[in-house]
């Protein structure tokens, strides 16, 4: 039986979920860090060798954005690190189970005083980040540190999208071990017309809302074209507008993996000025994200051609041509939420 079919059968019967929760999570959580991250790196290395199509796709994205400024050797190394980072993210999440002490001990936190000050001022804070580093784990880690954090996320994809991406279910249960660190259930991004009202409601309770600014427009109808990574990308300006309307400070947060694979650095920046137009603040958010991506491209999660097409960075005809050339099915692009 092909491995894909086994995986689907496991998915359909709930065996994958059961094995992950009852076997993988406790086993990895009990391992010393060097062993857990070592296994993640070994898994990533195997994936790089066995899933050449995905690896080549990441390389193609890097080539498109950085061109000759990144040598072929550096592109391959960055793409390899991309898969290593993603594998390590799963370990981060597992090490944050329980009270999260294991991961907190191996994380350097900077700028926590900005969050404390925001809560002291009584209007909560909108924490903004990108699909960069171990971002979801970083948000949960703030919860484990005792901060009242709620995440705006899309952890539960509609059924028809599960079939399309083939990762819907895994996507949900891989983050299960960290869910209890959040104060409230996720605010499901773009799932209803009340998302912004829900965010404002949480901020009014003097709590923290954690969101991402580099979501492709399918998750946000309020996308504006901005300079990003040498091109024009459609990115959301929603967080800046929400912070302004709610009177809450907007803090950028980055959760980087440092040289050692098992070590994270969570950095909270001082509040972004919301005095001018929403667009000025939105541009500053995007500038900070771009700076982070350029400083270590392997930590950005969105190096996939279809995602870059969704963002408007990668021309669709060129992307379709790439898929044709490598013999992959293009499928349908996601439609924006109604």
């Amino acid at each position, binding site marked *: 039986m092909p491995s894909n079919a086994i995986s689907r059968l496991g998915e359909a019967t709930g065996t994958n979920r059961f094995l992950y929760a009852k076997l993988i999570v406790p086993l990895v959580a009990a391992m010393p860090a060097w062993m857990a991250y070592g296994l993640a790196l070994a898994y990533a290395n195997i994936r790089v060798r066995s899933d050449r199509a995905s690896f080549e796709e990441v390389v193609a994205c890097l080539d498109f954005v950085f061109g000759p400024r990144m040598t072929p050797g550096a592109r391959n190394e960055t793409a390899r690190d991309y898969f290593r980072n993603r594998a390590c993210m799963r370990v981060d999440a597992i090490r944050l189970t329980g009270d999260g002490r294991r991961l907190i001990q191996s994380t350097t936190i900077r700028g926590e005083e900005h969050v404390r000050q925001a809560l002291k001022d009584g209007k909560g804070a909108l924490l903004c980040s990108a699909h960069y580093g171990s971002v979801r784990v970083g948000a949960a880690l703030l919860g484990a540190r005792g901060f009242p954090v709620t995440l705006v996320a899309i952890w539960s994809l509609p059924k028809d999208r599960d079939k399309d991406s083939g990762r819907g279910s895994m996507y949900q249960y891989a983050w299960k071990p960290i869910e209890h660190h959040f104060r409230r259930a996720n605010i499901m991004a773009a799932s*209803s*017309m*009340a998302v*912004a009202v829900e965010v*404002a409601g949480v901020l009014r309770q003097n709590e923290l809302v954690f969101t991402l600014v580099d979501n492709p427009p399918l998750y946000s*109808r309020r996308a504006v074209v901005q300079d990003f990574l040498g091109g024009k990308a459609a990115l959301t300006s*929603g967080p800046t507008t*929400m912070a302004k309307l709610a009177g809450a400070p907007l803090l950028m947060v980055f959760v980087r993996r440092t040289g050692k694979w098992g070590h994270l650095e969570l950095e909270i920046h001082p509040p972004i000025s919301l005095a001018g137009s929403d667009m000025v603040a939105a541009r500053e958010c995007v500038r900070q994200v771009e700076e982070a991506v350029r400083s270590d491209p392997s930590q950005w999660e969105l190096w996939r051609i279809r995602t870059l097409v969704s963002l408007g960075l990668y021309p669709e005809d060129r992307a379709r041509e790439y898929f044709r050339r490598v013999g992959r099915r293009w499928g349908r692009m996601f439609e924006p939420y109604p």
Partner: protein
Amino acid sequence: MSGVQEGPSMEQQIREYINQEFVAGQEIPQIKDDTELIESGILDSLSILRLVLFVEERYSLKIAPGDVIRENFETVKAICGYVRKRKTQ
């Protein structure tokens, strides 16, 4: 003549706010009390937040996120119906 001057109705106030904040400058006609606000794209998640903050301040109400549903916000008439219902509760 009674000499009593009535202020603008709730419908007028909300309609004017929406026209001024979300319609002005766009290539869409001014809204009426029964114009579909969500279906037509005049209101999205963020503009609904702005509208909620306006209604809360103007009519001294606290609107729970659970009340922000299509039924209560699809037209000016629906918004006014919701506000009146809340005021009498």
